[in-house]
């Protein structure tokens, strides 16, 4: 067992969530270790994420909110956000890159890269599946007209929907347009 059933703050992890967290633990800890330079810290953050997700699910079942569609993805993305939070507080860790740097066009400095990463992570975590898929299609070079055809809407409506979602998330994480 890589992670404990109770997190560092003494919060219990639901057995279903614990099983899902165990499955992603090797990948998550490896990822976290690369960015935080500390596997124990990465494991702690995964446990905290699992405990938070357990609480969120319990709350959702109490309030009748929608179920979690992909528990592993949900825990992993909660974990990514915690990792980002820790890095944001530590300027040295914020300069660690997780992907081969400057392989995309228009090289940007490392802090900008971190900013982009946070924005992408938040967008993928917070937005609805349609927005996420629009984002994937835009990455592959689809025009708004082509995306609109897939979703049976107008190009303007598709673009506007995506832009609004992006603006909301930028605002939430403190980035100006």
């Amino acid at each position, binding site marked *: 067992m890589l992670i404990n059933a109770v997190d560092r703050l003494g919060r219990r992890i639901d057995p279903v969530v614990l099983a899902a967290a165990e499955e992603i633990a090797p990948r998550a800890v490896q990822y976290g270790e690369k960015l935080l330079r500390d596997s124990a810290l990465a494991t702690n953050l995964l446990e905290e994420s699992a405990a938070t997700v357990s609480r969120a699910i319990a709350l959702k079942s109490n309030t009748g909110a929608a179920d979690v569609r*992909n528990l592993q993805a949900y825990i992993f993305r909660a974990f990514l956000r915690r990792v980002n939070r820790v890095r944001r507080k530590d300027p040295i860790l914020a300069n660690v890159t997780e992907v081969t740097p400057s392989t995309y066009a228009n090289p940007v400095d490392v802090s900008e890269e971190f900013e982009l990463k946070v924005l992408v992570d938040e967008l993928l975590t917070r937005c609805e599946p349609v927005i996420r898929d629009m984002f994937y299609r835009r990455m592959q070079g689809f025009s708004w007209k082509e995306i609109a055809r897939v*979703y049976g809407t107008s190009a303007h409506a598709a673009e506007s929907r995506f832009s609004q979602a992006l603006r909301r998330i930028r605002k939430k994480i*403190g980035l100006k347009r």
Partner: protein
Amino acid sequence: MKRNSQIDEERLLKFGKHYLSEAFPNPDRIGCPSEDALRLAAVEPQKADAALSEHLTFCSPCFRSYMDFLAELRQGQPGQKQPLWKEILAWPGTSPLRLGAVAVAALVLSVASYLVVIQREGPKTPIAPQPGTEPGPIAFSPFTLDLRELSPTRAPIVTGDQPRAVTLPRKPLLISVILPIGSEEGTYRLALKTRDKTVWTEPSQAHLVEQKITLQVKLDIPQFPPGTYAFEVESANGFFLRQPVALQGPGVEPEGKKQ
């Protein structure tokens, strides 16, 4: 960190693609959907499971596959070609306006060349088509080649009395070959041979028709010079028949078993 920096969409998309393609290796492919599910999601995202979209957020191999499916979708389905005009428009530096200008220039040049030729050679009277010279579909006459009297052998070596040659009419024939009793349905190879070479060969399927194992084949007889040939029937399991056939010269009326 530059909190107030403006991050344009293009940079976000480029980073996002690179990040999701590289940052989340999943060598054991834990929780990965099938290729078919990914392809379906690319084609009809609204029918796809939303959990799949979430999986792509932390699995680089699946994300790359999904990007490949989207790329295929954008270029048209695999195996399907874009219309020529779309391909030409996709060439770098082409635009509908430029293409239109090129087309007009080509048209003007063609008309000018035509006028020059007409002036030099004078107008040509169109030649009316000669009656009866247009090639039409070949009409195959039915003909039955009954081989029930022959004994199949296990090798293309025929000993003893040779059967009498059957004369084939000199016209395209749809030949129904009746095989000896006890023959099996299936694929046979038919061949027409002179003494030293095969002049025609074709496979054919034998079926039970009115209690007879029969196979059919079209043979354009006039393309072969007159003479005596061997008509051979052979199967993969060693069944072999040879029937001499005579092809007569033009104008000679044969005495075959014309239907």
